[in-house]
């Protein structure tokens, strides 16, 4: 018998610290699979966020840098500008990317910084125990919105791909999910495209991955997948919001 599925080399063979059913592990694996398939492990430098995936530097076999909260796109800019031939990716959660790091995200995109951003959106601050995130849905109960997020008080969630798709420097803005095998296959294709864009020097590519947080949502891992499908996808529709290739073809 031949092995048809096993751990990609770029994904370190150590236990993950994530809670049972947390889909970070799936997303890590997809990034590692793309690194393996493109044969770029030795030229890749990853930048970790602050949040649940803060220790992602232990999980990838490429060189890794741990950035301050929200600053990963600025750190990645420094890396990419210093070593333009390397492959640089950031891996960031919603609090990191869309709240404290909004300026760094928007400006890396508008500069057309030739990097890949993996944006994991699970509508909560997981590491600190489930507080309201910039992407928390209206009505969603969190530790800091105990009566549900009220847009009159806490405002509205940020739709990151839609926002970044308006910027000329963005090459790819695509939202995917990891709630099912077909969606996981789509997600991997998007991540692959983002890395190929970097290889071809097309500019800033962001893949937003809708993800779960069973622990802080107070759901079982399987129920959490249902919430992702039933509540998140309608608010954050999946799809390609900007693809520089499609724009060119359409012109």
């Amino acid at each position, binding site marked *: *018998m031949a092995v048809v599925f096993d751990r990609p080399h770029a994904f370190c063979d150590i*236990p*993950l610290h994530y809670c049972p059913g947390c889909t970070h592990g799936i997303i890590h694996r997809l990034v590692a699979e793309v690194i393996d398939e493109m044969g770029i492990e030795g030229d890749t430098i990853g930048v970790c966020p602050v949040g649940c995936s803060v220790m992602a530097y232990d999980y990838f076999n490429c060189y890794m840098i741990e950035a301050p909260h929200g600053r990963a796109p600025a750190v990645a800019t420094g890396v990419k500008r210093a070593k333009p031939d390397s492959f640089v990716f950031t891996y960031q959660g919603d609090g990191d990317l869309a709240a404290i790091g909004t300026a760094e995200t928007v400006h890396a995109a508008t500069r057309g910084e030739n990097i890949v951003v993996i944006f994991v959106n699970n509508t909560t601050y997981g590491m600190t125990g489930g507080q309201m995130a910039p992407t928390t849905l209206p009505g969603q109960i969190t530790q800091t919105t105990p009566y549900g997020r009220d847009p009159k008080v806490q405002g509205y969630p940020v739709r990151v791909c839609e926002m970044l798709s308006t910027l000329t420097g963005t090459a790819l803005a695509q939202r995917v999910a990891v709630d099912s*095998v077909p969606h996981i296959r789509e997600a991997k294709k998007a991540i692959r495209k983002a890395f190929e864009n970097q290889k071809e020097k097309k500019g800033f590519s962001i893949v937003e991955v809708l993800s779960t947080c069973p622990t802080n949502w107070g759901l079982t891992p*399987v129920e959490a997948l249902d919430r992702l499908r039933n509540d998140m996808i309608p608010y954050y529709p999946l799809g390609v919001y900007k693809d520089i290739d499609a724009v060119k073809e359409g012109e």
Partner: protein
Amino acid sequence: MAKITVNFERCKGCGLCTTACPKKIVAIQKERRNPKGYYTAECIDDSACIGCAMCAMMCPDCAIKVEK
């Protein structure tokens, strides 16, 4: 002929693999806890496994190896 091997130490018993199996033959066993205290996933009918690897693709802990 296909088979899955679940890494007993790594599996956290989250059950996401059970939702992905088209043959409905992946389940969480309730007899043996691993050192971290989780009941782990297992294939309940090896002969029915088609080696599609959907369970492994869904596994957040990369704990399933698939051979065919």
